């Protein structure tokens, strides 16, 4: 057991640093520094650069376009991209449906979809939650009824992140009403331009249009767009949830986040001293750093397990719970740190509107981000559901 990087790892780290320094788009960096909301092309800009380099999907098997990096190299990669404050690649294709397709898909599905996910040509969204099915996902009621070579899909999905940009969606639908809940579900890939699909925005607390309702009305989906067997979609769903939970720890990004909060607290004054000198504020930062270190080393131990051939297991729920709590505490401390200038509501740079936001640059997204980040303990299986998973799968209760 040791924490040393090998000479090869150090060389890799240098290569990654140089690559980011030379290739990260300057206009994207400027937009991030201004704290602007990201548009579709912003997300895609960095994605496409990484695709060209062959680094867009480090976690994928090499045969499907992965990098073949060791877990240590992947660790370095996530550290370095977070350190350089690179925009997060959207998970829906790369981290979610991609792994489902290369694990459960047909050769045709792999050949068609995987390259398009890698290149960024297709934007994906996730059709899971329904108005009546949140934590109890398996109670979902969207139906898919067989009609020759097609399914006819009817129902309503909700909380569909960035569906307004999506080319494709992966959906959980009920294909057998009489089976036990988990057993009558199938996993369908649906073209979002199909007739019968309506996407309606839901505006969240920070004023963002991030999530949507998706209505499906007699949508015809070819049978060959079903992944895995009919009525076995829950297997894919569970697999995907485990994948989603691992990435969700967000250690590297939170480390970067702590540095940002500290920088704000060194700038903001509290009396004649920086806020960071306030013992109460300082203590909260210290506790956050300590908890983040605990999370980091728990993830590293879990990676060592993955190294030994064990996939992400139910203990990844721990990473989700602690990671999401830390993300929330970060936004809470940021909002606390900016003081009065948490209040002005900045609508963003609209058409012909180039008014600079009120207050310091680091302040105007503080409250919206705090509000928005309440989602992290709710999505991907709420933290209460994660506790149920640990209780059942790890503790055997």
């Amino acid at each position, binding site marked *: *057991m*040791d*924490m*040393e*990087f090998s000479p090869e*790892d150090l060389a890799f780290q240098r290569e990654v640093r140089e690559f980011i320094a030379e290739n990260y788009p300057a206009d994207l960096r400027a937009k991030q520094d201004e704290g602007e909301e990201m548009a579709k092309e912003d997300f895609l800009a960095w994605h496409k650069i990484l695709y060209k380099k062959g680094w867009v999907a480090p976690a994928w098997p090499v045969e499907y376009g992965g990098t073949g990096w060791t877990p*240590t190299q992947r*660790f370095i990669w996530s550290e370095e991209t977070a350190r350089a404050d690179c925009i997060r690649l959207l998970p829906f294709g790369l981290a979610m449906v991609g792994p489902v397709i290369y694990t459960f898909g047909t050769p045709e599905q792999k050949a068609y979809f995987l390259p398009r996910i890698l290149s960024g040509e297709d934007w994906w969204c996730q059709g899971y939650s329904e108005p009546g099915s949140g934590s109890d996902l398996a109670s979902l009621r969207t139906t898919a009824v067989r009609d020759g070579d097609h399914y006819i899909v009817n129902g309503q999905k909700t909380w569909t992140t960035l569906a307004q940009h999506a080319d494709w969606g992966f959906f959980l639908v009920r294909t057998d009403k009489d089976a036990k809940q988990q057993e009558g579900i199938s996993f369908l890939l649906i073209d979002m331009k199909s007739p019968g699909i309506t996407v309606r925005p839901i505006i969240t607390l920070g004023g963002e249009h991030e999530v949507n309702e998706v209505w499906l009305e007699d949508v015809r989906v070819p049978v060959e767009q079903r992944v895995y067997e009919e009525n076995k979609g829950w297997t894919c769903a569970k697999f995907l949830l485990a994948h989603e939970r691992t990435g969700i720890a967000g250690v590297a990004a939170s480390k970067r986040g702590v540095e940002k909060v*500290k920088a704000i*607290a*060194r700038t903001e004054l509290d009396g004649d*001293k*920086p806020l*960071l*000198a306030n013992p109460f504020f*300082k*203590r909260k*930062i*210290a*506790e956050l*750093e*300590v*908890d983040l*270190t*605990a*999370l*980091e*080393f*728990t993830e*590293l*131990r879990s*990676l*060592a397990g993955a*190294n*030994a051939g064990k996939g992400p297991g139910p*203990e990844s729920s*721990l990473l989700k*719970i*602690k990671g999401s709590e830390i993300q929330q505490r970060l936004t809470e401390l940021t909002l606390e740190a900016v003081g009065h200038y948490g209040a002005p509501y900045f609508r963003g740079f609209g058409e012909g509107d180039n008014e600079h936001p009120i207050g310091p640059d680091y302040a105007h997204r503080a409250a919206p981000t705090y509000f928005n980040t309440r989602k992290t303990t709710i999505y991907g299986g709420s933290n*209460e559901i994660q*506790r*149920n998973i*640990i*209780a059942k799968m*790890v*503790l*055997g*209760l």
Partner: protein
Amino acid sequence: MDFTYTETQDMIRDTLSRFLADTYDFETRQKFINSDAGRDPAIWTALAQELGMLGAAFAEEHGGLGGGALENAIVMEELGKVLGIEPYLPTVVIAGGALKAVGGAQADKFIPEIIAGNVIVAFAYAEPQGRYDLANLRTTAKKDGAGYVLSGHKSVVYAAPWATHLLVTARTGGGQRDRDGVSLFLIDANLPGIVRRDYPTVDGSRASEIYFENVAIPADALLGGEGTALPLIEQIVDEATVAVCAEATGVMQKLHEGTLEYTQQRKQFGVPIAKFQVLQHRMVDMFMEVEQARSMTIMGTLKLDLPAAERKAAVSAAKSKVSRGAKFVGQNAVQTHGGIGITQELAIGHYFKRATMIEGQFGSADYHLDRYEQLTLAD
């Protein structure tokens, strides 16, 4: 970067764990901790001579297995699982650590004695006024001819009633809280003028108040430089601190497992209380604390070799997390057991007591958060 144990390390853990399962069940432990001596000396001898366990963390040139801090952590965690009161921490981790750091003739002479199980060392560092400040010392060692004369009062010296030797911090110069002027001595525990008041501790061990009344000690008792030993003392206390984090991990694991087991047997309202979601989630929270304690122990152990400031910050991060986790897991284990948890009858209460003492050992969570802040969050 590698987070796996070597085969030798796995073997050390398995060997020790099997030995303790045979020799250290809860009833046997209760019997010997309540005996006059407060321990079973045969266990220490067996650890040394049958298992070679006391050499796990020493270099091969001294007759050890060539390990270090990770091996100490493994032994301490296994001892934690059985509420072991064996003086491994003061003898091997602390005195052994000091000797390894100092090297030379003292190490050559003494380390083989530790490995053979011939000596037990108690660490006399705390003083009534000093709290967790290692430099806050009223005990003095005054130059006297070739040697020194030691005077002062040391508090709550664990394992002192069993000790053949004492590792003592004392002032050879400077004011009461100065960093300079601190020295470290390894002395015979039975020198004339050493007065002990022995007592049991709440967590099943034995300790003493030690009064040095003009104790004449030889010059070669000095470990490290005269008046410049504080960095060495800080280093060995950091090593000891992560070692008790490892012990805490073992204790917490047992508290958690015991609670899981009990809730599946105990029925109320016609069902095992483990069926109640409020208790399930509590036990998940306990599980997460155990896992994080394990992670922080590994983190602290791996960072012991870094430069002092980084080492101290890492150790303080680990100890603050583990202290709080130990409190959380201990208190909730008792709460979940209900009334039986606050009796002497079940092991669980005894694990709680040890967990509680570990919280403050070598510094509370608050102390370590303070130290962490001073090192990393200067404004």
